[in-house]
């Protein structure tokens, strides 16, 4: 009898496949609006860009570019899509610079425009094809927005995500406005997105695999080697643009051991611990809305394709290197989160696909918009490393009693093997003691004293016990700080 009832429920509730996402505590602060999908328009959204007329350009893995009228309308179900271009090769980067829409295809950077005004692009100009592809599906090319010098940054996945069979696989290139190629970083494995922070420094996500113990956010610091030595042979064709070929890292070592031996090696700014934060890090966007997207101005938001989530990242600089912390932020996206863009009203547009790689979001493809409700969640706002611990700030005033109690926090650390084999378990675990907690007089931050910090480790903090001044627990109590460098002061 019970079973029959379930059946009825199934039939009734699954007919419209594209309803609103299920209620979630996160909804109270950030609402998910879901654009309707259909079978005719396979919107496997590889890249997003806003056009000067306010339309949203959505590029797909099938090589189409759609324009969405009024993408910021309150009711996305009435959105109107029109086809702007098609027949392109798996577009994973879109950027507008008048009068052209630039896209990054597998084999080239192309710019296009609609010359006859019929709403469809008709002139496609190749800006650069300064790298090669050999027919392997994994040879993806992800593109950025324009940097402060007008360059596009392109990250090139390795062949099969393991080796570099043709030119510049496993490299980041900058493409100048006149189409010149500047070799920028080596060491890329399998990127999932590229984006800038508020200062205009460029980052990308790389994914668990050889030389990548887990997925990570990495700084594309020009001239640096970011971890996977598979593309080293192409130093020979750079004319010394970023110096000589670095020495090979030692497989089975640790990242910070090797970083001390290899001056070119830039360690990942933030690790996303496998299964805990996600499994496939993807698009990156910085909140530059100055408060329109809530209390996290200038922080980075990073997608995870497998978990269909958007994560939050706070970065600081220590000894000239970026490092920082990631937090869970929002789950429940329609498909596997891939492309992220911040709209003019501060909301995040999030494109998804799970073709070839499964995701928690069960739609085959999706376009969602994440809107701040205006209500501040109680969250750890920032987490900074100190010589002897961490400083946490919060989005809301805290309850001094729970905040001052070391038992409100638990802390453990681990790192990853830096190795040629695929991925890594968490290794070298420690459980440091939080010896003391000082609560700031303004009730907005705490100082944790830790015995002792572990250089090169992820410091996994759970602040389960802390309460806001109004008695609320944290919306997300977990934080994962990548402590490559312990600040001296």
């Amino acid at each position, binding site marked *: 009898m019970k*079973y029959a*009832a379930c059946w009825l*429920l*199934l039939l009734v509730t*699954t007919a419209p*496949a594209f*309803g609103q996402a299920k209620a979630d505590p996160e909804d109270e602060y950030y609402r998910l609006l879901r654009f309707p999908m259909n079978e005719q328009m*396979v919107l496997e959204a590889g890249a997003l860009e806003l056009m000067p007329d306010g339309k949203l350009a959505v590029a797909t*893995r*099938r*090589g189409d570019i759609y324009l969405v009228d009024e993408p910021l309308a309150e009711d996305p179900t009435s959105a109107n899509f029109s086809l702007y271009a*098609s*027949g*392109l*090769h*798996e577009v994973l980067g879109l950027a507008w610079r008048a009068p052209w829409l630039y896209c990054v*295809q*597998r*084999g*080239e950077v*192309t710019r296009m425009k609609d010359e006859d005004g019929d709403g469809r*692009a*008709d*002139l*496609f*100009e*190749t800006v650069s*094809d300064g790298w*090669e*592809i*050999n*027919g392997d*599906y*994994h040879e993806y090319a992800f593109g950025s927005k324009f940097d402060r010098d007008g360059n596009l940054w392109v990250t090139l996945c390795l062949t099969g*995500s*393991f080796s570099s069979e043709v030119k510049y696989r496993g490299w980041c290139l900058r493409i100048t406005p006149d189409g010149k190629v500047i070799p920028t970083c080596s060491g890329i494995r399998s990127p999932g997105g590229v984006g800038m922070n508020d200062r205009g420094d460029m980052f990308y996500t790389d994914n*668990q*695999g*050889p030389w990548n113990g887990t997925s990570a956010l990495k700084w594309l610091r020009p001239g640096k080697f970011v971890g996977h030595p598979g593309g080293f042979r192409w130093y020979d064709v750079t004319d010394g643009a970023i110096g000589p070929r670095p020495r090979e890292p030692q497989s089975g070592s640790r990242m910070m051991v090797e970083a001390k031996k290899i001056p070119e090696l830039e360690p990942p700014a933030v690790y996303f611990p496998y*299964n805990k934060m996600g499994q496939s890090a993807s698009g990156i966007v910085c909140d530059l809305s100055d408060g329109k997207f809530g209390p996290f101005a200038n922080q980075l938001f990073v997608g995870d394709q*497998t*978990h*269909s989530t958007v994560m939050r990242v706070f970065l600081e600089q220590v000894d000239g290197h970026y490092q920082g912390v990631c937090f869970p932020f929002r*789950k429940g996206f329609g498909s596997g989160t891939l492309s992220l863009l911040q709209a003019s009203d501060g909301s995040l547009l999030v494109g998804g696909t*799970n*073709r*070839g*790689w*499964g*995701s*928690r*979001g*069960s739609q*085959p493809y999706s376009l969602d918009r994440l809107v701040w409700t205006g209500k501040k969640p109680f969250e750890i706002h920032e987490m900074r490393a100190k010589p002897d611990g961490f400083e946490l700030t919060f989005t809301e005033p805290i309850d001094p009693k729970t905040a001052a109690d070391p038992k409100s926090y638990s802390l453990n650390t681990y790192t990853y093997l830096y190795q040629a*084999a*695929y*991925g*890594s*378990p*968490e290794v070298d675990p420690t459980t440091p003691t939080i010896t003391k907690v000082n609560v700031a007089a303004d009730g907005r931050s705490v100082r944790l004293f830790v015995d002792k910090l572990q250089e090169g480790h992820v410091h996994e903090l759970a602040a389960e016990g802390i309460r806001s001044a109004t008695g609320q627990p944290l919306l997300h109590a977990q934080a994962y700080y990548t402590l490559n460098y312990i600040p001296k002061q």
Partner: protein
Amino acid sequence: MRRLCFFCAAILALAVAHPAAARAVDQPPRVLGFERFHAAETDTAAGELVAGGQLLLGELNCTSCHAADASFAAAIQKKQAPVLDSVTSRVKPEYLLKFLADPQAAKPSTTMPNVLAGMPEEERRPIVDALVHFLATTGTVEHTNPMRQHVSRGEKLFHSIGCVACHDPRTEPPAAALATSLPLGTPSRKYTLPGLTAFLANPLAVRPSGRMPHLNLTPADARDIASFLLNDLEIASGLQYAYYEGTWDKLPDFSKLTPKATGDASAFDLSVSPRKENFALRFDGTILIDKEGEYLFLIGSDDGSRLLIDDKVVIDNDGIHPFQQKRKKVKMTAGIHTVAVEYFEQGGEEVLQVDFEGPGAPQLPLASLVVATKSPGTAVLPERFVVDATLASKGKDYFVSLGCASCHTLRKDGAPIASTKTAPDLAALKASGGCLADAPSKSPWYALGARQREALAAAIGAAKVPAADIATDVSVARMLVRFNCTACHDRDKLGGVEEARNVHFQSDMPEMGDEGRIPPTLTGVGAKLNPEWLKTVFAEGAKDRPYMFTRMPRFGVENVGGLIEGLAAADAALIQAEPKLDIDSTDKRHKAVGRRLVGAQGFSCIKCHTFADKRSTGIQALSLTTMTKRLRRDWFHAYLKNPPGYRPGTRMPTPFPNGETTLPDILGGSVDLQTRAIWDYLADGDQGILPIGLVTGEIELMAFDEAVLYRNFIEGAGTRAIGVGYPAKLNLAFDANEMRLAMIWHGAFIDAAKHWTGRGAGWEKPLGDSVQQLPAGVPFAALASANDPWPSTPAKENGYRFRGYRLGDKREPTFLYSFGNVAVSDYSRPVGESEYFVFERKLQLTAADPPKNLQMRVATGKIEPVKDNVYRIDDRLTVHLSGDAKAVIRGQGDTAELLVPVTFTDGTASVTITYDW
């Protein structure tokens, strides 16, 4: 290598002559579990020492002479000595002479004791002779030499399927020998190829106690591994290759080319080529046809190939094309025939496959018929060992009286020979002297190490008092050590792949990480696998993880069957009760929900897991159809809630994060109901209806009133191909890397399914008909002299740049590219009416400073003028050239070129070509 063996043999001869000198260097018997878990001097726990000693009591087969009570004997599971029923059909008598004279010298680390160690040489020699003459009555060895192709395949198998879990890898240069490896020495001293092949094909027949498990080798696998292990014998090769580099549109005349490399080949395949593009191969070999009859030969390739038998072309599969197989039946006489295969590859995918079908036989690779021309090699064979009946009869007496028969089964006339040797019961033994003495005496000499003697003494001491019941988890652990399961598996921190062997555990799915290559943990396995399945695995071995090269061998239920109950009991506490659900598991609607959950609109299990023989759309993880036959249902319920809890670091996503389903609309969002629906659906195994989204149909792209573009990997047009389908049902593919019109074809345009489903791997070929390949290489070149060859290097190296394209009113592209200071626009359109269209291609060139002697290469191949400005190409395509410029045919035969001079007026020039086919 041969020199080295000779040297070894010399040492061996010395050792036989002076046994006392050899004693000093005798290697203790190697028992892998003892070496790994009990050998450390620091391991002083008394219980552990006894456990180590008990392990040795079993592995050294002590209780075959020293009787133990039944329960003790059952607990130590003695390792039976090899069955000798037909020993000399696999082992050389010459070896037995050396081995019986001094086992430790002939096979260092052997567990075979020297029962004659206390005897002077002059007494020992006749006994050994007699024993060997007796043993030699069990059969005769055959000598054949290994073949090159079998050796190279065997080398791969040996290092991948799990042999090196227990034995040292045999690499060049040799890896450091591990204390936890069973040394193989130089097997050619002991075995002939047929003998070792027979042993490897079924080790349990000779060694029934399962320490050397049965690896489910095919006859060819066994032969090839044996060939590799005997690779110090003279190797015969019946197949050679020659490798060439260059760019061709069809098979070149190999007799006029100089190969870049030559050597022995192991098969008619492309593994000998370092390149993937622009190369050619010729294989020459000999095949042996066993019996006269009609044979079907098949040759498939991408690009062209040809099969010659006895110097006559049998199948011609020439030209640039996607994989295309041709076949022909040929009457063959019995005997030796020469065979040659020619092949070339220009660009795109590359495949070569040469097979045959004998009369009434299945299809096999042609390489399996290859034989060496000078078999079995020129080496002098040892003289056949001649049995002396008198000596053999004496030998039989020794076999009975010396105790050989206590350990070894040897059946004569159907009955095993019984031993008359007696020895004290185990419980009555002193823990010193006898077999434990530290110098040879009248007792069998094992060359025990000090630690081994200490452990055996402890175990013998413990055997005097009734054994306390061993806890189940301890007895399970001991079995795992005894059978060296711990070489591949870990369980509760015991064992697991050793670091030094780790590199030999590989998979063809590197993306799966360690899960793809390291055999699964046995922690909690008793709560995971269903007992019937475990029984099947022990009885038959398993290969459920197709991506993992290491195989689960067959140990025999009679040997390891105790683990079935043992694991279940030891892990009983880990079993989590499954939810009580009031549902009908056979209800078709219920299974349909399960099917939906498994599919692309559900949890997308099929994105990673195969379904029987249907490939998944992503990685190829363990087949879903094996789940319900392998797993316990209660475990499945618990596992799906928390995969990383059971397999830390697993790539398996969590369908129910935080205990909640990501599909709340199905079955009321009940995690338990959803799990059960999946289980009940999967219980249908490969009889189940395929999950949704696993098999996708064609995605044909069609042009209606506008042209359709498709940029992707198109076979024959490169990695940056731009396919264009026109409403007139003509199609073209432009290669944006080489700036050339690469292909034109009629009818259907293209199927995008390969690139638009799953991860999009592979090359797509035209979907339509009469595909015409147009010339490789750049379209324009300035030739200083009429004899200059056409450039064969990539377009970018010739100064070409792709500039993009402009779309016309009907989305038809005009391709834009440049070279030097010349800008080119290249526009094709179908012209004609109703059913008959041709391509008209207009090329416009502009240059402020035009190059001199600029030519366009319009066609290559066999070129015949039809009339003015009309040419027939390869009897398949007609090109019309308009304008005044006079085209020139350069070269002759099948490699002619049709060149059109390009003349600029006021900085512009144009060429118009019509393609009609």
